[in-house]
């Protein structure tokens, strides 16, 4: 295989960037998270050093030390032992890694852990209330809305958000707004049925 071309490399040395950048922005430790204010603090990290990151996952602050490259998906699965969130394509194409960030559905594979600080992350592990399943989880079971189950956590997280957004008004609406979650087993008709079952219960609160 030929050597990959390397357009992004330049003469800019990483340490000199840090030095230059630190001159204009106040360098603050990344772990200095004061609820809400963190997002407004200028921070500079060095590519060669691990970052201290605090993620608020399912209502709990979780501390980890990680490389800047770590995605929320890898932080959840590899560092926090929350393996419910699945890695499918790792490129934002399949939806298996869907989580809620401040209540909005996003792709954890394209979200950097360091950039997700100060936000509330909800994963499939955070949906149930003790032993009582979330209405969407129960509906997926009732409607047999999966076969192999690999895409299911992402489907369920996406489905919860789909209902909350008001995008579960009709079958066509559900299909359009759930198109970012791919199911290779093609359980789609049953997924639509599950969302229709759960939607009134979720909206009723």
């Amino acid at each position, binding site marked *: 295989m030929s050597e990959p071309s390397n357009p992004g490399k330049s003469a800019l040395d990483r340490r000199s960037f840090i030095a230059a950048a630190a001159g204009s922005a106040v360098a603050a430790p990344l772990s200095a998270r004061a609820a809400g204010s963190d997002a407004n603090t200028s921070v500079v990290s060095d590519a060669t050093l691990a970052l201290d990151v605090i993620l608020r996952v399912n209502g709990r602050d979780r501390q980890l030390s990680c490389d800047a*490259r770590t995605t929320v998906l890898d932080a959840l699965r590899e560092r926090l032992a929350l393996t419910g969130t699945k890695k499918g394509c790792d490129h934002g194409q399949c939806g298996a890694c869907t989580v809620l960030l401040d209540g909005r559905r996003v792709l954890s594979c394209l979200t950097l852990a360091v950039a997700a600080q100060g936000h509330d992350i909800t994963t499939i592990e955070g949906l149930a209330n003790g032993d009582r399943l979330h209405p969407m989880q129960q509906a997926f079971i009732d409607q047999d809305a999966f076969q192999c189950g690999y895409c299911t956590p992402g489907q369920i997280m996406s489905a919860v958000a789909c209902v909350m957004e008001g995008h579960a008004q009709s079958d066509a609406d559900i299909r359009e707004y759930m198109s970012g979650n791919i199911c290779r087993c093609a359980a789609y008709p049953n997924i639509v049925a599950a969302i229709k079952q759960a939607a009134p219960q979720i909206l009723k609160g």
Partner: protein
Amino acid sequence: MQPFSYQRVADPAAAIQALSNNGGKHSPLTSGAVQVLAGGTTLLDLMKLDVMQPAAVVDITPLSTGWSEVRLDGDTLRLGALARMSDVAANAEIQKAYPVIADSLKLAASAQLRNMATLGGNVLQRTRCTYFRDVSYAHCNKRDPGSGCAAMDGINRMHAVLGTSDHCIATYPGDFAQSLIALDAAVEITGPAGNRSISFAELHRAPDNSPQLETTLRPDELIAGFTIKGRWPRSVYLKVRDRQSYEFALCAAAVALDVQDGIVRDARLALGGVATVPWRAAAAEAQLRGQRLDEALASRVAEVAFAGARTHPHNAFKIELGRKVVTRALQQAASMEI
């Protein structure tokens, strides 16, 4: 993914200062050593593929409080660069006064991606050309200037038929940009020398001899927002693709009409999925002004829109398909109840 340093900035001046490390102002923004992170949906994807390898990433999302406004003030619309695609698509005022904008955003990507992606990042989204995205292909003039173009003799079904050159036929992939170019939006740009404004049509560069140069932005500039004068309630975005949803366009048309007493007073037409850059079909628009729009005129206009199209072995179908999309989009716009 290659290692990078991460910086989060809380004000535009700090972002521009960080970008000043990108060096020469004539170097292409997209291969700069310092890259801006907003939604991250293009940047992190391409970094995982090693197509982009910045030494430093500047996270500008803390600016979003002031930079994500959607404001319709009289007949002037302002869209902040950090507004999320989903929020703008769901805005009731936009849906009423600018259906072409709301639909071009709604029909792009998936719900998750639209929640993440920002308007500024969206217009700078990079091509989906397979040969560009896969670094194991040695020949890509966009990635490696002068190396050749693997798409010319490769699988080029998805590639462009308008605005191509002998060096690149990569399709501009976005949808929203077609609305902006059709409505003659202005782009507000902030940089070390202050703010400047350009017409949206001046933002992207056709490949010509330098496919690696994709925009006229300098490496130390940020898009701050977009401004549109006038309301366009009679407008549509029609997107035809291989799947019903969550797919890039084979051909798309952004149409905006001002019709009075059955006569077209002003007409805007832009094409997506078929060109190397957001493509305004100005000659085709000119055919519409002062005319009564019927099916015969719509199909004549569609012919003009694809005059000069240049095909490759697998994408010749885009001309016929494109003409039909333009014809249908014009008729849809003309028959809208507003």
